[in-house]
Every structure is written in C-alpha cells, then in structure tokens.
C-alpha cells in the first residue's frame, strides 16, 4: 500500500474517517477505539469495517450498551496515558453522556489547575432524513459547543474529515467530532493517501463569491454549494464558508467574508432555536454590522422533534431550494 501525502484518491466521507483512524492506530499505540459493535460489525454504519482485523480486539473494543460508563472510562483512560476514541452510535445519545462530557471531560484540565489532561475524542453522528424518527435523527452539536473546555468538530468533506479527525486524536483536549450519517456513503471527494492534518479552529472557504456569504456546517455545506450553483443561474454570486469547527470558531474568516459580500445566511442542521445559527449569526452581526446590507438570516432544522414519515421529515431539513429562495430574497432578486 504505497502512501504519499500527495497521492489523491476519491474517497467517501466514511472511508476517509476509517483511513484517519487506521493511520492513527498505526502511528500511536495509545490510540484505542471503544464503542458498541465497533469490532467485527464495524459499527452500525460499517464505518470501522476492517479495523479490528488489522488492529485486534485490544485496540478496537466492543462495549456493552453503556454510553455513560464507557465514556467515563475513556475520560479516565485519557488522563492516564491512553488516547481513546469513543464511538457514540447516534448523536442523540449525546444526551446520555453529557455529564461525562460536560461535567467531567471538559472540566478536568481546568479544575486541576492544568495538571491533568484529557486527550479524548468522542466520535458521534448527526443528520436526519434516514427515516429514523425523533430519537435517532438529531444534530446536537450545539450542546457541547456551549461548554468551555471542549472542542467541537463538524467536518463536511472527506478531506476535512480525515485531516480533522487526525488533528482531534492528536489534540490534548476532549474533542467531540460529529459525522453526518448521510455523508458517509453519499459525499465523495479527493483525499491524500498519507498523513496530513487539518487544524482545528480554521474555517474553509468552500466557494468564492461576491454577493452573499452562506455559512454552512456539516451536511449543510453540500446544500449551500448546491444552492450557490442555482443562485449563479440567477446572477447571484454566493460565497460558501464552512467553519469546520464549532469551537474554536474562526471568527476572522467568517467576518471577512461577510465584510466583502455584505450579506450573510447561516445554515445548520441542528434545531433552529438556541443552537448554532444564533451564535454564528451574532458573531457576524457584532463584527460586520456596519458592512451588512440587511440582517443575518438563519436556516436550521425545523423546530420540531424529527418526524418519521418521509413527507414530514423532508419538511424539517433545510434544502437547496430553501437556501436559494431565502438568498434570492436577501439579494432582492
């Protein structure tokens, strides 16, 4: 398997994740994966398929259905020399581990006056439209983003996913890493075969434009890019900025883009209220107020529990058309 950092292949989002994990497992013996059905089954999404064969059951460890328990165990393991990567199958189960994440992992370093460190990665999922209903479809990245002491990563492309996951594993802080389920198989893109990292805290301009800035996260980056293509057809040049990490948040890149375009929309798949869009819109409005032609607008998941029926569920997630129409209105065209 010849690997050079420059050899680019097309990988799916899921393959990029797996490759990042495989490379880090190879690189650092202190890295272990823990979670439900991560070994032979390779997780419910089959993203880890093949890893246990290479690394064995001591490194790719099946756990009982005890999310608080094994997350807590991983916090302690991280403090004492390991670099655990925990798999939380559905992002909805973040609700089960918030004590371990927010009260323990996030605070250990600070409470100990900087003496203990928690190099822990929690990989989990987000994203709806899989007809999985209200308890298996949420995008809860706003919750950990609210808690100082955590880093929160929401990659949108295979390239970013691999580079950011490697950076997260090497980070000495607890990082919550949200992977969009739909992207696993659907989103493809070029990925270097060898080692590279993408720094945590740096946004990426996914598309240059002049008339409006679309700040989009995770699954919504594809949606924003699709809308940007549609907008082009009506003569609107949209810039798409992907913050890539919720925290640290690269305010500079966001604000610079909006200073240039003078219009901004934030698109995120988390619930609309008290979530990600409010923070990012506020950061933009605070720092680019006098450059704005109109208010920053937001699109989030409809503020309802995610329904099962396709006709209902599809009405809860922002679409290319939603973004297109709102952008057109904002540009008065």
């Amino acid at each position, binding site marked *: 398997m010849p690997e050079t950092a420059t050899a680019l292949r097309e990988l799916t989002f899921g393959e990029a994740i797996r490759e990042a994990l495989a490379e880090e497992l190879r690189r650092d013996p202190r890295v272990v994966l823990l979670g439900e059905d991560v070994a*032979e089954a390779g997780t419910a999404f089959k993203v880890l398929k093949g890893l246990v064969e290479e690394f064995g059951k001591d490194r790719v460890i099946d756990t009982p259905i005890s999310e608080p*328990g094994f997350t807590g165990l991983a916090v302690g393991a991280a403090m004492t020399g390991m670099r655990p990567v925990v798999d939380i199958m559905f992002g909805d189960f973040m609700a089960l581990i918030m004590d371990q994440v927010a009260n323990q992992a996030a605070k250990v370093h600070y409470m100990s006056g900087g003496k203990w460190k928690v190099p822990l990665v929690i990989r989990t999922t987000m994203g709806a439209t899989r007809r999985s209903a209200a308890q298996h479809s949420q995008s809860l990245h706003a919750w950990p983003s609210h808690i100082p002491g955590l880093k929160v990563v929401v990659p949108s492309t295979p390239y970013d996913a691999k580079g950011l996951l490697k950076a997260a594993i090497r980070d000495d802080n607890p990082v919550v890493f949200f992977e969009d389920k739909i992207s696993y198989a659907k989103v493809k893109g070029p990925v270097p075969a060898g080692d590279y990292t993408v720094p945590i805290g740096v946004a990426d301009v996914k598309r240059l434009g002049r008339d409006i800035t679309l700040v989009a996260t995770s699954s919504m980056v594809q949606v924003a890019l699709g809308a940007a293509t549609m907008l082009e057809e009506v003569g609107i040049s949209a810039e798409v900025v992907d913050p890539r990490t919720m925290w640290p948040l690269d305010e500079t890149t966001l604000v610079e883009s909006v200073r240039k375009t003078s219009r901004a929309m934030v698109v995120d798949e988390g619930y609309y209220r008290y979530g990600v869009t409010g923070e990012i819109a506020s950061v933009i409005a605070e720092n680019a107020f006098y450059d704005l032609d109109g208010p920053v607008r937001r699109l989030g998941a409809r503020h309802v529990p995610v329904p099962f029926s*396709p006709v209902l569920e599809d009405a809860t997630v922002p679409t290319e058309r939603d973004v297109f129409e709102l952008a057109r209105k904002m540009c008065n065209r």
Partner: protein
Amino acid sequence: MTTATRQAAAGLDVETLLRMYRQMAAIRLFEERVSDLYTRALMPGLAHLYIGEEAVAVGICEALRPDDYLTSTHRGHGHCLAKGAAPHLMFAELLGKEAGYCKGKGGSMHIADPATGNLGANAIVGGGAGIATGAAFSSKWLGTGRVAVCFFGEGALGQGVLYETMNLAQLWKLPVIYACENNLYNEYTHCSETTAGDMLARPAALGIAAERVDGQDVREVHAAASAIVERARRGEGPGFLLLDTYRYRGHHVGDVAREYYRPKQEEQRWMSERDPIALHGDWLVSEGLADRAALERIQSEVASEMDAAVEFAVKAPYPDPSTVDEDVYA
C-alpha cells in the same frame, strides 16, 4: 412451582390457549409482511423484527388486564400487537401514513396507544425503564391496580438507568414487571461479551423477585408472568423475568449477512427445535385441544387479516406536510 401447577394456577382454558396460538401467529405473519414491505422498498427506514420471540410478548400480555401498561423497544411490534394493537393501524404507522397510530410521526420504533395501555415503543435502549416504573408509580398513587410491564432486551442490562429505576420500584413496592428478553445478542455482539456475572442476580441484588423462564414456551411464560403480575398487583412489589429467547432474523431487516457474528447452525437449531409457535401448536394437538386443520385455519385467518391490514396501510394517504408542526406541544 412446576409447569403443571402453574398452568392450573393460571387457570388456562382452551380459548386462552388458542388465542395465544393465534396471537403468536399474528405477530409472526405481521413481521413477515414487514420484511416483505422493506424488501419491496415500500417501508421507509428500517425495522427490527420480533420473529422467534413471539411467546414472550404473548405469554406476558395474556397475563395482563387491558388497562395494564407496557413500554416497548426498538423491537416492539410483537409487544404492541400482543397488547391489542390493530395491525392495520400499525402497518399504517410503519409506512408513515396519517392513519397510523402516531399519525406517521413515530414509525416502527414509536408505536404508542393509550387505548391498549401502550406507553410507547422506544428507540433508546433502556428508554422504557423510567416510563414503565413511573406508570407503576401512578398506579400505586392513584390506586388503579394497574401493572406496568417494561420490555427490554438483555442489551439494556448495560444501561445504568435500569438499576436506578429498579431500585426505586423495589423501595416503593411499585407494580412493575421488568421483562428482559435475552435473545443472546446486543445488535452484533454476543451478550457474554457485554454482561458480567449472572443476569438474574442483578435484580435479585435489589431484592426484586426474579425468575428465569423459557421464553419459547408460551405457557411457561404465561404462568410465570401471571404469578409475578398478580404478586405486583397485590402490592408485593416489582418483578423481573429473564426470558431466554432468540431472534431468527437480523438485528434489523437490513442485517442479512450474519455469519460473522453468529453461526447459521445456531439459528437453525433455534428455529427447528425451539420455535414457540410450532411448540405450542404441537402441544395443542398432542393434548387434543386442537387438530392440525384448526391450527391451519387460524394461520390462514390471520394471514388474510394481515393482507387486508397491509392493503389498508399501503392505500392510506400520507399526512399533510403542514401537520409537521402539530403535536409539538399539548
């Protein structure tokens, strides 16, 4: 208590014995149609089939009053049907139709129905533990005499909240039965890799009356359930049943290549030797309580019923998209 004594104690008559057969057949045929709907790409999402475990739901629910409560799981169709759910309204829900039990908002993992005491299936493993225990709390506080049954798989033994709620139930002598369906697998992982010690010792440590039961023998299940349910109803506290059973199919309808986590022979053995419907049918025949023709009649009646139910559901309209904003708040 021997099986014989128990049956006597539970006072099983022929109608009940035949109804249990019919109910198990109904669940089996319901699930086969679910599998079929999935294969034909008519069903959105996934479903977790109860095939092979029918005696558990039926044996327990036959021991309940209509107004007793249950909570169910991701693998919940059997529980809902055994407690009295109408197949056509269930199929409609599974297809995301307006006519479904939850107006299409819940789907396979969230069938709920106050009329049959169904507090809801739950997609969080162990998610029913609090709810069922709380229903038992209400029953005791309001003096309604209702019992709540909390169904869950052995995988839920991994969830700490189960011990928290069992402790509460025992402290307060709440009429709740924890029905642990041990089908040996947590998704794709054998329970021996996830469960230390002795399963039954866990509730017993809390002082809860706990019993291991052959979950493939519907009469045995029914007898054990009857005894423990009535004990709970009398105010003597919660109970725990550990029911040995097996799911014949995959974890969900899409889980078809299973050899990497469990051998085909194991599946075959359970299906050929421990099938709850066949076992009960054979017994009915051997006891002279039914003949083969009668059992086949039941099977074909149920099959027509299921066909009609599927047809109803397939034809039923989807909800209006505008209803997406309804029912968020009461």
